[in-house]
């Protein structure tokens, strides 16, 4: 029975509960036990909110893991930062409230890079998360705990958040589906802000149908978020049979010098599969995408530097023990409370906004964003989707890039232009690499590592995107995740 429960996707679990094959509390207990025994440091807390939703809702009480960036009433929420030690929100984030209202239960809060800043989940104040495919490697970040939990089968599905790739990149590195919706599709209320103009919540799931199911329940205009719009139409379960008549654009000219060979090989194979399913591959120019990473690493830290100013030891969280005055209290609380990467970004953002530097850095970056938005608009006049690898490499070793922030930032190279354009994108399993990353591996190969494909669509074209991803998923022979290996 246990293995049967483990094999159910979230959507299948909903059906099983509704059919009376399994009870919501049975499923909840099953996952709670698994999450409590988690070996990958995926969770910051398990079962802190033990109310099992009554089985009447559309999600039938199926449990979900929540990234620690989402506030949950009565449940300690820290964004994996020491500075929020002891913070118990008096309110629910909109995403949590909507999932609750739809009948989801909550397994626990997942680990993440502190304040969602990172691409490896090594920046958590509570220890790095390990990749269930290979525990010596990173799961990606910043939603690394959510990805590891789903990959290891300690949760059927999880929420993530994506600012520059934080859903898509860990999904790719953990062999999962990760969807970053159109900016504004999902309310940001109650999601601890990293970069307000880029942050979006989304699902990390085993398959495309689950991603659609979660999106259906979390999207929507929210009176508590002025920048939310919702999606113009209901999210429906993907059902397309083929990719006939659809054009997939590859940004050109491509220079593969910085991308792992195996990632290119998997990408090439993916293009062939798209063609085999009826899709057409075209080349398209994105002339300013080359500058996206630079713009991103100014805009996001600038917004973050202000968003994190409220972490000041006055109203909530951890305050340093100081005998001095107010300034000393602020400086010590923040100096001790934030980890190195968060400090780095606060410094970078503060510098970019400071008097005399604003125009050269922040102002220029905002103009680059304008050009990128224009590029994408033009691109979607000639194609339906834009495709790239999700990450330039497979999961790298723990500690491999921690000494060089710039190297780490480059992991976001493919995901960041999409974030700046605000369009939706999905990462889905596209193939496997051998453990040394040198060659494509067959499903079942010992130590194989997943490689992801990123598909981006125009604003608010989520249904279309999910349909295309669904076809691609069906055409791809990909091993299930580690959740099927163990028990």
């Amino acid at each position: 029975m246990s293995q049967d429960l483990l094999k159910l996707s979230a959507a299948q679990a909903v059906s099983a509960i509704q059919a009376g094959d399994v009870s919501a509390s049975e499923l909840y207990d099953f996952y709670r036990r698994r999450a409590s025994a988690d070996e990958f440091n995926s969770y910051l807390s398990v079962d802190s909110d033990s109310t099992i939703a009554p089985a009447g809702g559309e999600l039938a009480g199926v449990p979900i893991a929540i990234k620690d960036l989402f506030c949950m009433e009565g449940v300690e929420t820290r964004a994996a930062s020491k500075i929020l030690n002891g913070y118990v929100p008096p309110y629910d984030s909109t995403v949590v409230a909507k999932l609750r209202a739809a009948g989801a239960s909550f397994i626990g809060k997942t680990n993440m890079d502190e304040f969602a800043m990172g691409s490896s989940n090594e920046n958590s104040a509570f220890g790095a998360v390990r990749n269930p495919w290979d525990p010596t490697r990173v799961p990606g970040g910043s939603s690394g705990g959510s990805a590891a939990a789903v990959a290891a089968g300690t949760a059927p599905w999880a929420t993530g958040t994506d600012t520059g790739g934080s859903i898509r990149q860990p999904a790719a590195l953990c062999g999962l589906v990760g969807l970053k919706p159109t900016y504004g599709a999902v309310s940001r209320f109650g999601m601890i802000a990293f970069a307000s103009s880029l942050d979006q919540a989304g699902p990390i799931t085993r398959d495309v149908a689950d991603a659609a199911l979660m999106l259906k329940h979390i999207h929507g205009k929210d009176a508590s978020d002025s920048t939310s719009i919702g999606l113009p139409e209901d999210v429906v379960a993907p059902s397309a049979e083929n990719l006939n008549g659809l054009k997939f654009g590859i940004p050109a000219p491509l220079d593969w010098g910085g991308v792992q060979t195996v990632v290119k090989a998997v990408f090439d194979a993916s293009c062939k599969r798209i063609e085999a399913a009826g899709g057409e591959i075209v080349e398209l120019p994105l002339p300013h995408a080359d500058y996206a990473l630079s713009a991103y690493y100014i805009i996001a830290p600038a917004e973050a530097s202000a968003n994190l100013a409220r972490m000041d030891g006055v109203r909530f969280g951890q305050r340093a023990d100081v005998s001095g005055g107010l300034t000393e209290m602020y400086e010590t609380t923040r100096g001790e409370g934030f980890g190195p990467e968060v400090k780095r970004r606060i410094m970078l953002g503060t510098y970019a906004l400071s008097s005399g530097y604003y125009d050269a850095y922040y102002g220029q970056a905002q103009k680059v964003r304008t050009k990128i938005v224009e590029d994408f608009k033009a691109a979607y006049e000639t194609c339906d989707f834009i495709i790239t690898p999700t990450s330039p490499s497979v999961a790298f070793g723990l500690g491999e890039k921690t000494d060089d922030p710039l190297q780490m930032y480059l992991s976001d190279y493919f995901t960041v232009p999409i974030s700046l354009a605000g369009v939706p994108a999905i990462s889905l399993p596209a193939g496997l690499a051998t453990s040394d990353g040198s060659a494509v591996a067959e499903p079942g190969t010992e130590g194989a590592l997943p490689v992801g494909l990123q598909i981006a669509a125009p604003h608010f074209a989520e249904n279309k995107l999910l349909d295309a991803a669904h076809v691609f998923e069906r055409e791809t022979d990909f091993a299930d995740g580690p959740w099927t290996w163990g028990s």
Partner: protein
Amino acid sequence: MFYKVVALVLIGVWVGGRTLCAVISGEDVAYVARLARLRLTEDEQAQMTRDLSSVLGYVEHMDELSLEDVQPTARVVDLVNELRPDEVKPGLTKDQALANAPEVADGGFAVPAAGS
């Protein structure tokens, strides 16, 4: 050239070369840390100076673009006038408000007095 920079930067030597170009002084770092109310140890400050130089050196290539007449984009959503009616909503009780406070005195959030 979408991926050219990935290619170049993954060659570490090149990154090292760029790192040396960018200029941000220890003084700049100290000033910014003060603005951001961040205490940095001496080691952290030295490391921060190197890290910021490296990243700022990298982003400098945005200067290649002449964007004088381009309007900046602060957000990609095309919305205006998202306002709320002037209606009272229930808030927190005093106890709820103070529940998370590190220090409470006289029914308020206590902090060390400014300036001492």
